[in-house]
């Protein structure tokens, strides 16, 4: 009997340590980002990160200002979100309230496919097809702009926004709908004035999750935004995001140099941004019972 107890206890501890692995990995990620980033504080000093020029490879003066990278990411993310919101939300409403059951069965897996397209393939498509289109439509010198990146990223955010908004809409109690219809409201009025407002917090959370995905996206954005680290809020200029900077420059740095450490600072800023976006949307979704506790 005691042998059996021992065995049960060993199994429990084994499973428990597997369970805590996620916590360990998250802690390790923070630890290693800071470990590699730390040398930057003593040389050349943390104040350098707040400059407005990113010019890490230079014989005269190396500059590690994160500002252009942050504005690049923010610009692309905001544009992408603006494009994705109408498609995502209207799509979610259509799929959950208007489409027939059969239509739904086809539409949902199809949108899921979009979520599965590798970002490097999307970036390749953007480079070959979307960028020349943007160049011609707006009469620009180059099609590699913040807008091009935003269009592609919008399509990466749409599946996230759609599927979570749909869950939010589905979780609205049916009596709301029935009460509204019984009072004489039409179906459209019921959808936009009763159901969508009732599901709004879940929809907002879905948009934030989509934004989290967009901020962290690397390959597509690196291939089509033109990679110019300048502070700009013009969608028709080339920009460079934080993710693209890490991916493009990490291959060429000397390990342990200031440039190397500064890229880990970029990673830390990026991680904190996505962390906040995810945390807030998780809290909202949990509060409204859309995630099991």
């Amino acid at each position, binding site marked *: 009997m005691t042998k059996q107890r021992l*065995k*049960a206890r060993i199994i*429990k501890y084994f*499973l*428990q340590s*597997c*369970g*805590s*692995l*996620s*916590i360990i*990995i*998250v802690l*390790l*990620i923070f630890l290693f*980002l800071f470990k*590699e980033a730390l040398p930057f504080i003593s040389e050349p000093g943390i104040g350098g990160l707040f400059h407005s020029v990113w010019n890490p490879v230079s014989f005269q003066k190396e500059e590690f200002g994160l500002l252009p990278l942050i504005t690049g990411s923010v610009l692309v993310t905001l544009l992408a979100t603006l494009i994705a919101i109408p*498609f995502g939300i*209207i*799509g979610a409403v*259509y*799929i959950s309230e*208007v489409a027939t059951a059969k239509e739904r069965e086809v539409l949902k*897996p*199809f*949108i899921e*496919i*979009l979520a*599965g*397209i*590798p*970002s*490097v*393939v*999307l*970036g*390749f*498509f953007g480079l*070959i097809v979307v960028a020349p289109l943007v160049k011609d439509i707006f009469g620009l010198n180059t099609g590699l702009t913040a807008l091009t990146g935003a269009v592609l990223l919008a*399509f990466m955010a749409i599946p996230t926004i759609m599927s979570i908004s749909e869950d939010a809409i589905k979780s609205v109690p049916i009596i709301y709908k029935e009460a509204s219809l019984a009072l004489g409201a039409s*179906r*459209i009025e019921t959808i936009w004035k009763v159901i969508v407002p009732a599901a709004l917090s879940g929809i907002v959370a879905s948009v934030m*999750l989509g934004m989290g995905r967009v901020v*962290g*996206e*690397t*390959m597509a954005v*690196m*291939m089509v935004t033109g990679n110019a680290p300048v502070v700009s809020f013009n969608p028709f200029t080339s920009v460079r995001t934080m*993710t693209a900077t*890490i*991916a493009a420059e*990490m*291959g060429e740095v000397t*390990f342990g140099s200031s440039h190397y450490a500064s890229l*880990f600072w970029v*990673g830390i800023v990026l991680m904190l941004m996505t*962390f906040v*976006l*995810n945390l807030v949307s998780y809290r909202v979704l949990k509060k409204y019972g859309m995630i099991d506790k």
Partner: protein
Amino acid sequence: MNKKRTGEKIIYWLMRGVTYSVVLFIAYILLDILIHGLPAISWNFLTGFPEKSGAEGGILPAILGTLYLVIGTIVVALPLGMFSAVYLTEYSKQNRFAQSIRMAIVTLAGIPSIVFGLFGLGLFVITLNFGSSILAGSLTLACMILPTIIVASEEALKSVPKYMREGSLALGATKWETIYKNVLPYALPGMLTGAILGIGRAAGETAPILLTAAAFFLPDLPTSVFDQVMALPYHLYILATQHPEAQKILPMQYGTALVLLLLVIGLNMAAIILRIRVRKKYKW
């Protein structure tokens, strides 16, 4: 009243239009890559080595490299994710420890893939001194897909009804015997769905392996887990953006994109089909 009806119809059609424009966009991407990619694919392309820095020849090393990375990833991530899910659904109580595990899973799922790359570079490549290698890349990807596998496995375990456990326990089986013989077998197909989705994601990711495993051109196939590898997504990235004659080798790029796309979408479709079949098979 009639006027209102027509107005409503117009709005429905507008909504339909918006939804289907997304579908059209997806279809356009798929068709564009299929139409331009198919002519590039030949037996030689799939089984040959790259020549003239990727301008001619095949992509066999990249296909195999992606395969090695994915196998390494799943071998690490699947058992850990499964056990983790078993702990969460069958053993843990509703306490702070379980809460923090869940918080960690959500956090992990939201971390950008390039940050996983930085982490893998710092921990596996440099600190543990694995170098840029299959091992470092697989471990990095495993950390990345762990949340996918845990969440899917949990869902599969939860869908096995309580009486399956109670019956077994009432007959005198221990907790682990119950889980091992009466719960896991029924949850396994659902868990595999998560595993396939994870594989699909790992196969398509570029950013993490950029920093931990991938090389653009290697004359030989890797011989151990400590070797660098070529990989499909990285190969496509280099051909499309870094190659000096990127414009001239479009067929090679489209071919690589198509192979990668078929691999990833194939895996995702398999997961979707498996999920539907599992739901039909086990209606409790």
